[in-house]
């Protein structure tokens, strides 16, 4: 074996080691997205949030110790029309002046086998908290890891859409929230750089 290929093998080994003990905790927000889907008069619609902050620590070899906190800026909503954006900022919807953000805080993470996991936590919107479970997948992608998951909430649990909007015939009660989070790892063993 040439010294070059030996070096290469060594490199591979090191990479494998780093990857297996890597804790993904540097979220790359510009590559991540938080979107939602719902039905309006039976028509599938979607939208997204432009601003959100995710903090997470996820080591695929120790999923039980993982945790995540998500903070979504509700005023950054994109429903597809400015009329819709203005409407949902109002008191009957998010009342985003009084309740500017939606928050999720994990309480536990469970491995479901292969690349599938499940995070449990508290989702708080508009002053109301509800226990939520979101299944997700985790896939390494180069130096980064990609989390893809979704959870379905009932908007009326949070009083999102009050008054005439409580009519679930026009806008369905079920809203699917989808997240696509890209994070890189700072190896836990690495000394923090100054």
């Amino acid at each position, binding site marked *: 074996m040439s010294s070059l290929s030996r070096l290469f093998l060594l490199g591979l080994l090191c990479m494998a080691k780093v990857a297996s003990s890597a804790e993904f905790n540097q979220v790359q927000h510009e590559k991540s997205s938080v979107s939602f889907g719902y039905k*309006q008069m*039976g*028509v599938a619609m979607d939208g997204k949030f432009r601003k959100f902050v995710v903090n997470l620590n996820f080591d695929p070899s120790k999923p039980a110790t993982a945790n995540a906190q998500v903070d979504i800026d509700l005023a950054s909503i994109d429903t597809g029309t400015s009329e819709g954006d203005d409407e949902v900022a109002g008191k009957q919807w998010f009342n985003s002046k009084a309740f500017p953000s939606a928050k999720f805080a994990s309480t536990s993470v469970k491995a479901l086998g292969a690349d599938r996991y499940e995070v449990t936590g508290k989702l708080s919107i508009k002053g109301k908290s509800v226990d939520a479970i979101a299944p997700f997948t985790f896939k390494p992608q180069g130096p980064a890891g990609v989390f893809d998951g979704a959870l379905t909430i009932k908007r009326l649990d949070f009083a999102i859409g009050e008054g005439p909007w409580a009519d679930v*015939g026009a*806008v369905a009660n079920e809203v699917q929230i989808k997240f696509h989070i890209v994070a890189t790892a700072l190896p836990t063993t690495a000394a923090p750089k100054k």
Partner: protein
Amino acid sequence: MNSQSPSRYANSAILIHWLTALLIFVAFPLGKYMHDLPLSPQKLELFSYHKWLGITVLLLFLPRLLVRMAKPPPTALPAPAWQHIAANVTHALLYLLILLVPLSGWLMSSAKGVSVVYLGLIPLPDMVDKNKELGSLLRNFHEALSTGLFVLVALHLAAAIKHHVIDKDGTLRRMLPGRNV
């Protein structure tokens, strides 16, 4: 009566003519009304009803064409040549617009990112990708085309009344169900 040149429209043609007219008479004012409403569940409902009415107009177009081929319209009643030409041009444009008005509405909906689910049951394919600018362009198209339709229908209606009331001929009666002319 000879079967080659009927004196009146076939019952199927009459049915589709008045059904289409009725749908348009509801869809048009509904379109104007709903457009100005503030966003509300009612607005979303009315938008859907408007789309379903309009798609029904579109759906009736093919049977209408088939009926026309199977049962040609009666030969024109005696009238000055310019009136025949005016009638033919108006009818041709009406046919064109009952096709283009709903199609532009469907295109607009696709461009605005709101797919059409006919009667809340049957999802129709999106004709174009979501595109805001195209959406507002098509909205203007839809408005202009429906205004054109409105003007033509008004002319068409005025002509029908003129024939019935002033000329007292069978023009309107042969498009009405029942009695023979």
